[in-house]
């Protein structure tokens, strides 16, 4: 009896194994497409081994298209333009494409397109741009007693192409008892027109691994590594009114956005609320005020929550939230850009929504 079972199992396994071996050999022979060239944005060629999906081929080359489902064709995040070599559109892609994208004809899901020959693709420059830069500290400005503006000069010949409002990750070097490197995200505060260097505004956080390193160890001439640019916190190209709200080092991305707009020009109504505790927490006030002359309809409103009697503060006091109402003309046609601590973001988002601003028009980075 036992030997019969054993024989049957063996026979069944033999059939299974034989078929599996055939499949493996066939896979080797048939799915081998040799070396294929992927031309990206007409600028750069990468050579990959054909046979796998465009998404994973690009990942292997450190080009990371967004993908939430990991290439199973169920999220639609990995859309990109395939100009040639991608074959016809597959029924598995259709459900994820809008009418306009279908009409365009070259929008594909990178996870469904197989690389079987040379292929030409177009991906947003922002994705292509994410890189690790080596840079040198070229300037350190003390904005306040606890906030520094640090300028990093990129290595010779390096250029960073970013949108005003995006952030980079700064890698720390080991110092004192901190043995490992850490990376922390900071918004770029300099204008995107300058692309051979960038400035970050970093506020000292007691016990903070990175801010302690920056404030107590970083010197002019030090070499660091930055990765980026990341993030979709950047000005939307509409005609809507804008409210900026920032606190502490949250001034950085707004500064970049304003400096960018000063070059490009705008007639949008903009109000910038900056929340701080006391007068000595305010910085770059003159610079921000100067934008009131640059733009047709801009005002900078610093608000102090705990002004000292010696500050002789005559401006607005308390929290920023009560002052939104008077500046909002049409809540449905107003965008808000926030940068600050998670607590501030939550409170401000709630106040803005109470004032009728749609949630999808409130933008912020969520890295806290």
């Amino acid at each position, binding site marked *: 009896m036992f030997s019969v079972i054993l024989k049957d199992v063996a*026979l069944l396994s033999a059939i299974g194994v034989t078929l599996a071996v055939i*499949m493996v050999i*066939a896979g080797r022979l*048939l799915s081998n497409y040799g070396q294929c060239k992927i031309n990206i944005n007409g600028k750069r060629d990468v050579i990959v081994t054909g046979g796998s999906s465009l998404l994973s081929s690009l990942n292997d080359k450190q080009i990371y298209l967004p993908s939430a489902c990991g290439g199973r064709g169920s999220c639609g995040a990995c859309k990109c333009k395939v100009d040639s070599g991608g*074959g016809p559109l597959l*029924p598995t892609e259709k459900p994820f494409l809008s009418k306009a994208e279908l009409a365009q004809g070259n929008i594909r899901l990178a996870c469904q397109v*197989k690389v079987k020959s040379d292929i030409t693709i177009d991906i947003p420059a922002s994705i292509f741009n994410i890189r690790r830069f080596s840079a040198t500290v070229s300037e350190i400005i003390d904005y306040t007693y606890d906030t520094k503006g640090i300028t990093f000069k990129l290595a010779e010949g390096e250029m960073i192409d970013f949108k005003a409002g995006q952030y980079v990750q700064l890698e720390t070097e080991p110092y004192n008892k901190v043995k490992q490197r850490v990376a922390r995200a900071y918004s770029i505060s300099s204008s995107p027109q300058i692309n051979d260097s960038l400035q970050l505004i970093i506020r000292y956080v007691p016990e903070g691994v990175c801010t302690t390193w920056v404030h107590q160890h970083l010197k002019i001439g030090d070499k660091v590594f930055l990765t980026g640019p990341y993030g979709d916190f950047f000005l939307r190209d509409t005609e809507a009114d804008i409210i900026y709200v920032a606190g502490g080092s949250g001034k950085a991305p707004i500064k970049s956005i304003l400096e960018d707009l000063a070059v490009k020009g705008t007639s949008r109504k903009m109000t910038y609320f900056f929340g701080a505790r006391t007068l000595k927490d305010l910085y770059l006030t003159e610079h921000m005020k100067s934008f009131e002359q640059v733009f047709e309809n801009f005002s900078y409103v610093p608000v102090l929550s705990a002004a000292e009697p010696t500050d002789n503060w005559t401006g607005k006091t308390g929290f920023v939230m009560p002052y939104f109402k008077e500046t909002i003309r049409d809540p449905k046609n107003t965008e808000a850009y926030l940068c600050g601590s998670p607590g501030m973001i939550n409170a401000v988002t709630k106040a803005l929504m109470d004032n009728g601003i749609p949630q999808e028009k409130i933008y912020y980075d969520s890295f806290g």
Partner: protein
Amino acid sequence: MDISSFVLFWAAIFTSNILLTNFLGMCSYLSVSKEIESSFGLGISVIFVLTITTGLNWLVYRYILVPGNIVYLQFIVFIIVIAAFVQLLELIIERYAPALYYTLGIFLPLITVNCAIFGVSLFMVIRNYSFLQSIAFGAGSGIGWLLAILMLAALRRKLKEKLVPVGLQGVGISLIITGIMALAFVGFSGIVQIQ
């Protein structure tokens, strides 16, 4: 069975249509029949896979399962053979006939789980067909399946412009239509009978 392969072929298409008399392969029949072009593509793939896998399964049954005395494992073995063959076919078509791959190849994964394919292999064993009869029966069943899905797809295209009661829209009305088509096909049964 001493029925000739030629008769069996025609019988499989009309009098014993795998879909309309046995109601096998219903899932893809109902879901893909929304478009005539897709239906045709899937139908052609079914014909091809059905013909080959029936032959393959006959060989496996006759020369491995019966001598090895493991006929009771036929369900598992048939499914593995079908799955492996479909996978292999997909690789071959993708490599050597890209155009065909984009029209038919994408349906192949659907076919692996099409019970008409499996059903034909089982009928072949139950009815004790010879190799030639099995091939004829497989090909005929495939053509019959294509015929059925094409008819439904054509009718569904017409239905798009018709007022169908809300509760019957989509699959509901498709099943009723399939039932009426099945009745019509019973009309052929006087010509030849296979069991």
